[in-house]
């Protein structure tokens, strides 16, 4: 996949997208915030040019109603070189992704100057909110190299004057700014490297023109659209398609249209003040490698010394850069608050410090609820947030609950996170002020624990959508190494923190007085592997828990309840009356102090060190309905 051309930060369109288009088009009701949010949501996939054309029709229909909710209207005039008629609907179709509703008025083919000079031209008489001037190096007569510097300068000046004339003639009819594109240079060098320094080369003349355009922007209220930068990033060889130019005067390859349309729309959103303002960061495996609760300060990977550590340093560096230009930083992590803050306070390689974070939400609540809390605490709209998280489960939960939060897809390689986040363009700026740069400082560093909102998210319906399959089997030879690893490595979701050697684990496979469980979980995003290990000591009347641990990565999925149901079923079948659970406190397992309480056990005894004994009377236990399929298997005996 080409990250830029395929808009890699966006999800791939779902298989049923045409059905969704159809049902949205057939909706007879008045538009409201629900239908507008649905329009924003469907535009938030990486749509191709056909799908964008479809959305543009939905947008056109939507524009007929005067009702306004979360979408901002903008009328864009489009004056450019070549055939713009395939590009116009793509721009309109990309608008809802950036919460805008666009009307695009095209100028007549090849008549840029006439469109600007005549007050009754289609663009001028539409009284647009802005006009995009998208002229091509060929129309500006910079496609032929010239021999001497004076002639070159003359050509550049002529091209610049041409742009100025068009711009100044359009201005009286505009309600807003001009959007001026930098010109994309051709990619066929006449000399080779010398094209960069020979001022008469096509490439040098285009570069000189772009410098003058940038200067011009700096002095006024017009807005720069750096198409040259975009083409550079995606590669001129991907951008230019001479065959398409010759066949239909397409100014750039049609495959680039979705990317180009997105650039235009993010610029318009920025003009309307809708660029995002806050970057919310997950912690584990997003700004450092590993899980701080399990790996500890010494175990997380950050800094020089490993490729992975360096990649996460670069991510933190990028976050700080954003902060220095006025983007507010926040943290949203599933972690104990004190443990989550440790790296910020004590890790020598951390670039981010607590004072850089304006809102710090580290708890075991779902992330959508935490994002709502952050939005409240910072007093900024939920639509101002960008959420960066390596875990597709968390990303999808947030998208489902809060479709207005921007959640980029991330590749597996963290070294690419900065590239994906910056190219998604959430923080596009059309102007930068001194106030902007100081904004992040206005938020007091939040040293105290933020108030956690009670979860208001519809987790169960989300969980049901994940097609979770939970497989439970007794300990066996196949799982032995991984079981031993989990037993010795898990610290947080670990009720007793008892450590056993692999030999001791092997012995449990055949011990008649041990009830053992290895639990695996598969979901829509993939196979999570073995995520929980549970062992009960069997006696005639009661089974007592020896080990109960789980990977924090699957918190909130109700796996613990599935485990309990499994144990209860087995215990009841053997005539057992009760289950006994022990909580043995450690430095790291505070999060499971009330684990048994949540599962319906009764507190039987407490000790001074915080430890507790809990009891469940099996005749009072009823298994709950769970949002997953549970498969119980016999062990896979290794002969």
């Amino acid at each position, binding site marked *: 996949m080409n990250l830029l051309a395929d808009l890699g930060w966006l999800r791939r369109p779902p298989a049923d997208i045409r059905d969704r288009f159809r049902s949205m088009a057939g909706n007879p009701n008045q538009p409201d915030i629900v239908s507008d949010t649905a329009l924003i949501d469907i535009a938030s996939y990486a749509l*191709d*040019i*056909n799908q964008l054309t479809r959305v543009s029709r939905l947008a056109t229909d939507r524009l007929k109603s005067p009702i306004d909710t979360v979408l901002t209207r903008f009328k864009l005039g489009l004056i450019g070189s070549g055939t713009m008629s*395939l590009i116009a609907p793509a721009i309109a179709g990309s608008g809802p992704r950036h919460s805008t509703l666009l009307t695009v008025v095209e100028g007549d083919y090849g008549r840029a100057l006439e469109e600007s000079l005549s007050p009754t031209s289609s663009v001028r008489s539409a009284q647009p909110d802005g006009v995009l001037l998208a002229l091509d190096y060929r129309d500006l007569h910079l496609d032929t190299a010239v021999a001497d510097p004076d002639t070159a300068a003359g050509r550049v000046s002529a091209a610049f004057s041409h742009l100025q004339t068009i711009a100044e003639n359009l201005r009286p009819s505009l309600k807003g700014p001009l959007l001026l594109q930098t010109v994309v240079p051709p990619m066929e060098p006449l000399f080779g490297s010398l094209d960069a320094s020979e001022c008469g080369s096509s490439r040098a003349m285009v570069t000189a023109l772009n410098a003058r355009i940038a200067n011009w922007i700096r002095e006024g209220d017009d807005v720069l659209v750096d198409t040259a930068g975009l083409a550079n990033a995606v590669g001129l060889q991907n951008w230019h398609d001479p065959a398409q130019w*010759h*066949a239909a005067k397409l100014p750039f390859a*049609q*495959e680039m249209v979705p990317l180009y349309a997105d650039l235009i729309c993010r610029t318009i959103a920025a003009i309307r003040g809708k660029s995002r303002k806050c970057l919310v960061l997950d912690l584990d495996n997003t700004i450092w490698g590993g899980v701080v609760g399990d790996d500890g300060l010494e175990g997380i990977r950050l800094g020089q010394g490993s490729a992975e550590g360096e990649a996460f340093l670069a991510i933190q560096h990028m976050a700080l850069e954003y902060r220095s230009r006025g983007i507010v930083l926040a943290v949203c992590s599933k972690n104990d608050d004190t443990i989550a803050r440790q790296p910020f306070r004590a890790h020598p390689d951390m670039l981010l410090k607590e004072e850089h974070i304006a809102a710090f939400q580290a708890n075991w609540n779902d992330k959508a609820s935490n994002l709502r809390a952050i939005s409240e605490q910072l007093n900024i709209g939920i639509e101002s947030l960008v959420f960066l998280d390596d875990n597709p489960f968390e990303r999808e939960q947030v998208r489902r609950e809060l479709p207005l939060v921007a959640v980029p897809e991330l590749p597996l390689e963290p070294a690419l996170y900065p590239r994906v986040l910056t190219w998604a363009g959430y923080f596009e700026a059309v102007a930068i002020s001194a106030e902007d740069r100081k904004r992040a400082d206005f938020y007091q560093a939040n040293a105290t624990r933020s108030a956690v909102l009670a979860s208001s998210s519809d987790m169960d319906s989300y969980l049901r959508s994940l097609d979770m399959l939970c497989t439970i089997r007794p300990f066996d030879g196949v799982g032995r190494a991984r079981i031993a690893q989990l037993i010795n490595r898990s610290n947080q979701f670990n009720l007793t923190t008892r450590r056993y050697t692999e030999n001791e684990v092997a012995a449990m496979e055949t011990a008649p007085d041990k009830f053992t469980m290895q639990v695996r979980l598969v979901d829509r995003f993939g196979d999570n592997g073995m995520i929980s290990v549970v062992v009960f000591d069997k006696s005639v009347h009661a089974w007592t828990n020896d080990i109960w641990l789980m990977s924090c990565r699957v918190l909130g999925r109700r796996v613990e309840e599935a485990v309990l149901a499994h144990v209860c079923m087995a215990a009841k079948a053997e005539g057992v009356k009760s289950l006994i659970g022990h909580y043995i406190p450690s430095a790291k397992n505070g999060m499971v102090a009330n684990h048994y309480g949540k599962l319906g056990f009764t507190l039987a005894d407490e000790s001074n060190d915080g430890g507790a004994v809990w009891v469940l009377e099996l005749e009072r236990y009823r298994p709950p309905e769970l949002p997953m399929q549970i498969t119980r298997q016999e062990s896979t005996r290794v002969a």
Partner: protein
Amino acid sequence: MGMHVTIDQLTEIMRDVFDDDNIKPTEAMTADDVEAWDSLSHIRLIVSIEKRFDIKFTNAEVETLRNVGDLLNAIEAKL
């Protein structure tokens, strides 16, 4: 040898490009038979086909195509 392309595969693409689930292309069908099939949507059709089958047509090849049958043959020749 190359793979076979079916009219069903092309139908799927055409329905997407022309946004019409009722189109039932036959080998004799031409642009005149489909209201949404103009010079611009023709470009989208060619580009969509190129992307779907990972092939490239030259302009000269595109200019020779008269009907859906020609299109199917042209695609198959590239697979």
